[in-house]
């Protein structure tokens, strides 16, 4: 599997990663090499094999639907780049 620069551009957009144009071909060749390694998986037939999502096949533990966390807005927002009146600020989205 070889990944072209245009595909890198598309994947980077999906992942919201800003990539400079001059880096596209470098990433394309590195990602192609990685996908070549990945494709060694095709050596083995896995029809009928149950996919494994959890090492211990444990299912997600459930808990009662009650509030367990205190409100920590102030301490959590201390790490935010830009806040005002308890709100996270971003560039204007709707004119």
């Amino acid at each position, binding site marked *: 599997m070889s990944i072209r620069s245009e595909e890198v551009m598309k994947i980077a957009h999906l992942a919201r990663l800003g990539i400079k144009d001059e880096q596209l071909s470098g990433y394309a060749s590195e990602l192609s090499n990685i996908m070549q390694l990945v494709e060694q998986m095709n050596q083995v037939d896995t029809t009928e094999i149950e996919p494994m999502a959890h090492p211990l096949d444990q299912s997600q533990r459930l808990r009662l639907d009650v509030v367990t966390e205190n409100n920590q807005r102030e301490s959590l927002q201390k790490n935010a780049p*830009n806040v005002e009146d308890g709100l996270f600020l971003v560039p*204007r989205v709707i004119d």
Partner: protein
Amino acid sequence: MYNQSLKQLSTGLRNKAFSSVELSHYFLQRIKRFDGDLNSVITLNEEAALQSAAQADKSISMGEAGLLTGIPLLHKDIFCTEGLRTSCGSKMLDNFIAPYNATAVEKLAQAGAVMLGKTNMDEFAMGSSNETSFYGGVKNPWNLQTVPGGSSGGSAAAVAARLAPLASGTDTGGSIRQPAAFCGITGIKPTYGRVSRYGMIAFASSLDQGGAMAKSAEDAAIMLQSMSGFDEKDSTSVDRPVDDLLAHLDRPIKGLTIGLPKEFFSDDLDAGIAEKIEQAIDAIKSAGATIKEISLPNINLSVPAYYVVAPAECSANLSRFDGVRFGYRCEEPKDLEDLYKRSRGEGFGDEVKRRIMIGAYVLSAGYYDAYYKKAQQVRRLIQQDFARAFKDVDIIASATAPSVAFAAGEKKDDPVSMYLSDIFTIGVNLAGLPGMSVPCGFVDDKPVGLQLIGNYFEEARLLNVAHQYQQLTDWHLRVPAGYEQE
């Protein structure tokens, strides 16, 4: 002092041969003296450390001390530490002050351990050489031209140089075991779910597991005991009692069967490393264990499957870094999309970006079955191989890594060759088994690690075999040249 075991240090504290403040000061001084070259510690916690040491001294005076009370340690900078920068080795979190403690950090603090600082690591734990850190690479104290391994390279180098008796690590594909091998120390990754992942910054959630790095199996056992256990805050934590790891260390290993996977002992294995591993196995045999050849027929597919599962999970986990709620934000974003793209493009390093893109690619429309589902099926086959092997053997042994520490820069620009340096360790994470690395000699004056793999929740057995091996050998007591002065 620097080479004393945890038990010796703990006895010294109780007998008032020295105080925890003195001990902490001693190791802080070692960090200041030696770490300029190594770059293993990226944040010092001096003032708070001396305060908690003073607190520990009070507990000791009141006769309330456990084995870890007053013992200094370092945490990998992937563990959240309240009030202290937690960077995960990334520009993205260079300004992040964790608002709470990871459960593993909290448990060790409750046990009275004194946190001296945070260790350097590959960015978001993605790397096998510690060269992807935003804070620069870490040097291997055995040879400053070589890497310490990764991603817990800072923790491994610090323990090897005796800058602290203990350090925490995390292991997603070998990140405790491979650096432990490269730096000549003992490191254990327990069974998936044994140590809480709460507050441990997520890379690949179905593989990540915290563990202990120390000079010896005995010290690692004491540390792991304290870190382990069920945690309601981690939905993947396993609700099952923790064995008494210390109590099992002295059990004789006579009658145990050690399996050697033939796939890990092929003709491709470096001859020098093969010789050291064979000598280590002979020593274990001399203690009464039986050796049996086994086969893990699908193990050669573990690196390919891993490079689907880990990037897929990482691309999902790292989507939280959006430049809005915490972490790096680019200058003057022109709109929201520009804010996301430039914050992430500028905040993440190359290797992290590569893995996010691989993850986004394999999960993108139309590719899910061909890659992610396929990898999960291969993962099942690898798990079944191990399950079959553990019907016949108690422990599996191999080399931890296919080479000794390589030169800085050697694999930096070749991701695939870097990935293949985890060829012996990755299968253990895919299966969720416990594994460890124990120093077993030197090739070209560089340490070699013996990997021991156990069945689920057999940490006590693993540490028992490692401890018995360390009763017969002194590789774990060797200190790199230049770091032996008090």
